[in-house]
């Protein structure tokens, strides 16, 4: 009997270890982590928000930006996955103590931990994805932010032109995260810009930060509820919750869906039957640009504005009429020169 207890104890410990440990894979490079103290070696560490590095969304895009720096500049890179919001500071510390040159922290929620670490390690450059620096500039922190409202505006304008029922929906992560709110407000403003009488139904996940982005079943159920009352275009913006919404739309013939953050044609192939485009924020080039700036000694403090836009239409290229494409181009130009405003944050 005692042996059996032992077996269970080992099983339980193994399970704990499997679920708790954040995997981090060093890249096979000629340099190693021990060289990071050396001035000549560029070391980049990335701390994910709660979630995985391969989340098909912002963690993954940021990591791809780091990988670009590895390829182009021969940097050394490593990541750590945050399993619990309490570990933000500890995870940043893993890199800071080893004298990394640049540390990328992904996600709005990590803003405070990033600023605290920046004060403690003034010689390290910090790139905070989605972390607006509204409280004043800190010399070694660059907040990579995006005008999500413009991206959402384009998506909304497209949705309003493609809908046949006159009802369009948005299934969103939590309103606790400003970029999600910006996507929604932009989407609605864009739809109303095209058709002031359009029926907009949008909803946020009711849960907190820990579940709002990782609840595909809620996303799916909610988007069905929207489709059942006539919505034929659904914008899914909210990590895996949004992905669940997209996949649900794919099983309703004639309905369209719009992805978010990255080109989800590649990341959520199950949604291809409905995925007309994605409201993208180009995190990968933004992270890469900031790493190169840091390496060149020209690190920009404060807010660094990345670019946004719609993903290619892929298989829907033929079903989007040319005049719709022209209108989108006009709106895009208008948003850039300021003749069209989304109304968000004013």
């Amino acid at each position, binding site marked *: 009997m005692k042996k059996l*207890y032992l077996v*269970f104890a080992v099983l339980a410990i193994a*399970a704990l270890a*499997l679920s708790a440990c954040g995997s981090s894979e060093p890249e096979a490079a000629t340099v190693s982590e021990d060289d990071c103290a050396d001035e000549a070696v560029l070391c980049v560490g990335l701390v994910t928000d709660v979630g995985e590095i391969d989340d098909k969304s912002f963690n993954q895009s940021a990591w791809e930006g780091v990988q670009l720096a590895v390829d182009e500049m021969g940097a050394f890179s490593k990541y750590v996955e945050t399993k619990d919001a309490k570990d933000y500071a500890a995870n940043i510390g893993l890199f800071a103590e080893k004298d990394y040159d640049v540390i990328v922290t992904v996600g709005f929620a990590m803003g405070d931990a990033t600023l605290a670490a920046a004060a403690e390690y003034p010689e390290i450059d910090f790139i905070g994805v989605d972390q607006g620096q509204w409280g004043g500039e800190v010399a070694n922190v660059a907040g990579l932010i995006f005008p999500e409202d413009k991206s959402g505006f384009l998506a909304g304008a497209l949705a309003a032109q493609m809908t046949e029922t006159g009802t369009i929906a948005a299934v969103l992560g939590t309103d606790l995260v400003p970029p999600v709110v910006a996507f929604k407000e932009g989407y609605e403003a864009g739809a109303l810009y095209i058709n002031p009488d359009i029926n907009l139904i949008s909803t946020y996940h009711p849960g907190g930060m820990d579940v709002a982005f990782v609840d595909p*079943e809620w996303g799916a159920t909610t988007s069905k509820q929207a489709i059942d009352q006539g919505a034929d275009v659904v914008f899914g913006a909210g990590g895996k919750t949004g992905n669940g919404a997209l996949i649900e739309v794919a099983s309703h013939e004639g309905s369209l869906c719009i992805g978010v953050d990255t080109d989800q044609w590649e990341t959520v192939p199950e949604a291809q039957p409905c995925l007309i485009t994605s409201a993208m924020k180009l995190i990968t080039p933004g992270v890469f640009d900031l790493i190169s700036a840091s390496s060149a000694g020209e690190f920009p403090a404060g807010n660094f504005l990345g670019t946004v836009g719609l993903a290619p239409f892929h298989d829907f290229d033929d079903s989007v009429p040319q005049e719709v494409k022209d209108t989108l181009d006009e709106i895009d130009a208008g948003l850039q020169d300021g003749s069209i405003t989304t109304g968000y944050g004013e």
Partner: protein
Amino acid sequence: MENTNTLPTVTPQQLFFKRWTTTIMVALGIIAITIWQYMLDPQATEAVLASTVRSSTPLVLGALCGLMGERSGVINIGIEGQMLMGAFIGFLANVWTGNLLFSVFAAVFSGAIMGLLLAYMSVTLKMDQIIGGTVINILALGLTGYFYQVGLTTDGKMQSISLGFLADIPIIGPALFNNPPITYATFVLVFLIHYILFHTKWGLRSRSVGEHPRAADTLGVNVFKVRYINVIAGGAIAGLAGAFLTLEAVGSFERAMTNGRGFVALAVMIFGKFTPFGAWGAALLFGFANAIQTQLQFADIQVPHQFIGMFPYILTIIVLSGFVGRTHIPAADGVPYEKE
């Protein structure tokens, strides 16, 4: 000797109303609101009801899993883990074979294996059952998280099957008679488990083992066997709930995608007073709260959405604190049986 102390006589009708008044009032209230809303906006009302049924399905199944175990004296807080394992194995089977029916069986089977593990820990090893359930939850989270590879995709998920003219009944038709297969199976399971628990020899034995295992043992009931079979069957039902998530609702797997539904199912089971129909009603109430808070946002009505989401939990606390009738918890629940 005559008993002069006459007890107040309680007719069965009075007993019935005493037990069910609150339930009936809540149900009537919801029905009245529903009909009123249907007259205002039929499409939205039917959408809310369909959504209610859909979000209640994993909760009903989870609660059925829980009450199979608890009725025979085994506390199961590992529902979450059993569900997650079922969801994962079902998803993998679907990726490899593309056969949805086979995948459902794989999910159910893996849930049953998790049930077997729980039964082994709590019946044979006589471990603390809370710890046993926790082991299952952590084990499932760890194994599925470790073995899940991003990029696995499936061809699709189960589609709704409309039951002809029944689906055209106003208000309830689309919600009840236009569902995918696992949802129908859930309806059947509620009746089936009610029948088994309260109208068969096996059910009587299960309940006696949950109330007074020693007495049952004296009468020749094999306590261990009853508990094993019920806990394994419960695990299989939790596996079906997992299959619902990956094969019917979402069509894909994500790490930790059960998101606490196994624990909400526990609340649903207690709220439902450890009965299948009670659990069904409670799950529908939870699902209704979910659908309503979505609908309020759709209608752009500015109520804090957390507030509506909170509503069923407050009711659960009220039920637990004994304001609404007494909940009878099986007397031997959570106590390992020692044969003399």
